[in-house]
């Protein structure tokens, strides 16, 4: 069982909780392959999707997951909201909850926004990405994809390449993977690697060719041009020259090594088209797994109070 009403980050989850989510996601993957690919379990729940930052695939993935669980859903995006009329986040959410919603899925550009909300409302909150903090369901779907390919995460070597500094995907991957016993190396230009990475339990390598030697999986992050400042980013061409993953680099890794990318891709900036379309990428598996992982998280957060545990029905 999960201990909290919310999923805000992977930092505060235990290995057992992560395993429960991944195992439950496998059950939902099987549901998605059925003639009727949905189940009625959350037909009495209403979920609000609050997206204060633009998103296509995460929002669609959550929406589909909610529909596959038979929940009613309400979508709310910043551009059309009363936030543009000056309402605070708390007031916006209070108004939505007064309509009797049971759970909130939120993306926000401020790190810590999900925690802020979770501490103030009784409804469960699922963090769909908060600033540069975490993107827990992306971390979980990456781990599910890796576990499917490798059988286990324990002892496996995973390299995360890109702008680690600004990446909530990187942070969720690092927390989750290290808890599950994987060895994580982060790689990117020095200005994009925050200090104290070792304290998160991973190693740092500034040389991509060297970093991916002996790796079991490579997670290539999107260069988020919208987050770049002049100081940290040398420019697309300079970045590509040193950190773009291509077929030649991949050929020097283990034959079983495979490539993940959270999307959307900047082709020929962080990844070449040959790799992005090649036989060693699992990018579309990640998308499928994303729906299953989000079904698992929402389902697991929808139980009743712990005191009823043990009730039996025959």
């Amino acid at each position: 069982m999960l201990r909290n009403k919310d999923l805000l980050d992977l930092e505060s989850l235990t290995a057992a909780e992560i395993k429960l989510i991944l195992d439950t996601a496998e059950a939902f993957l099987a549901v998605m392959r059925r003639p009727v690919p949905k189940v009625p379990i959350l037909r009495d729940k209403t979920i609000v999707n609050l997206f204060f930052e633009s998103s296509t695939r995460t929002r669609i993935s959550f929406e589909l997951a909610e529909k596959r669980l038979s929940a009613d859903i309400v979508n709310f995006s910043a551009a059309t909201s009363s936030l543009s009329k000056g309402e605070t986040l708390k007031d916006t959410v209070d108004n939505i909850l007064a309509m009797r919603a049971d759970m909130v899925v939120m993306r926000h550009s401020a790190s810590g926004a999900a925690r802020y909300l979770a501490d103030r409302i009784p409804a469960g909150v699922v963090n769909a990405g908060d600033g540069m903090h975490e993107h827990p369901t992306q971390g979980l779907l990456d781990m599910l994809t890796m576990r499917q390919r490798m059988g286990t995460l324990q002892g496996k070597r995973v390299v995360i390449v890109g702008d680690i500094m600004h990446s909530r995907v990187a942070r969720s991957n690092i927390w989750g993977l290290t808890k599950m016993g994987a060895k994580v190396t982060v790689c990117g230009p020095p200005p994009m690697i925050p200090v104290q990475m070792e304290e998160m339990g991973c190693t740092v390598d500034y040389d991509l060719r060297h970093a991916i030697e002996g790796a079991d999986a490579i997670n290539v992050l999107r260069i988020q041009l919208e987050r770049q400042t002049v100081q940290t980013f040398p420019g697309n061409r300079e970045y590509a020259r040193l950190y773009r993953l291509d077929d030649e680099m991949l050929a020097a890794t283990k034959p079983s090594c495979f490539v993940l990318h959270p999307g959307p891709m900047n082709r020929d900036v962080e990844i070449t088209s040959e790799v992005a379309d090649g036989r060693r990428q699992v990018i579309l598996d990640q998308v499928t797994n994303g729906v299953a992982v989000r079904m698992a998280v929402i389902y697991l957060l929808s139980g009743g109070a712990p005191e009823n545990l043990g009730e039996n029905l025959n």
Partner: protein
Amino acid sequence: MNFHEKAQIMDPQRMRRAIVRIALEIVEKNKGIDDLVLVGIQRRGVNLARSIAQAIEKNEGAAPPMGTLDITFYRDDLSTLGPVPKVGKTDIGFDINGKTVILVDDVLYTGRTVRAALDELMDFGRARRIELAVLIDRGHRELPIRPDFVGKNVPTSRKEVIKVMVEEIDGREGVVVGEIVEE
């Protein structure tokens, strides 16, 4: 919470005899095993379905296909249940359209599990017929559901708990009745 055993309802031999009789009745009622499939409800219904399939094979020379069903995602009590239960495996590797499905569970009580199983089966296709086989019918139905094949009817009070034990999960076979006592 502890299970306090009060009496044995079936010893291993009687349990096996009941399974063999259910197997014979299934074949007799359906006039053979053509278009017959067995689906066990997780967890102990799966073991019982397997035993029934083996008993059928002994008599007919062939066993019907067998699947498993976990009804967790079709329960009607998620909000009152506490932390959501761990999900078992649903594995129906055949087409149920036009088939006679024998749904197998260990204990029939309120009927709510069977209701959930029926709803889930419907999502796999349109069976020609669905029949229900249970080892123990303990009464106290809350829904209009009745079994087609019963190992034994056992009148119980609501306070009592029926435990069906199978080799693969419990290390021994048999059926006992008892009560849950608070420590």
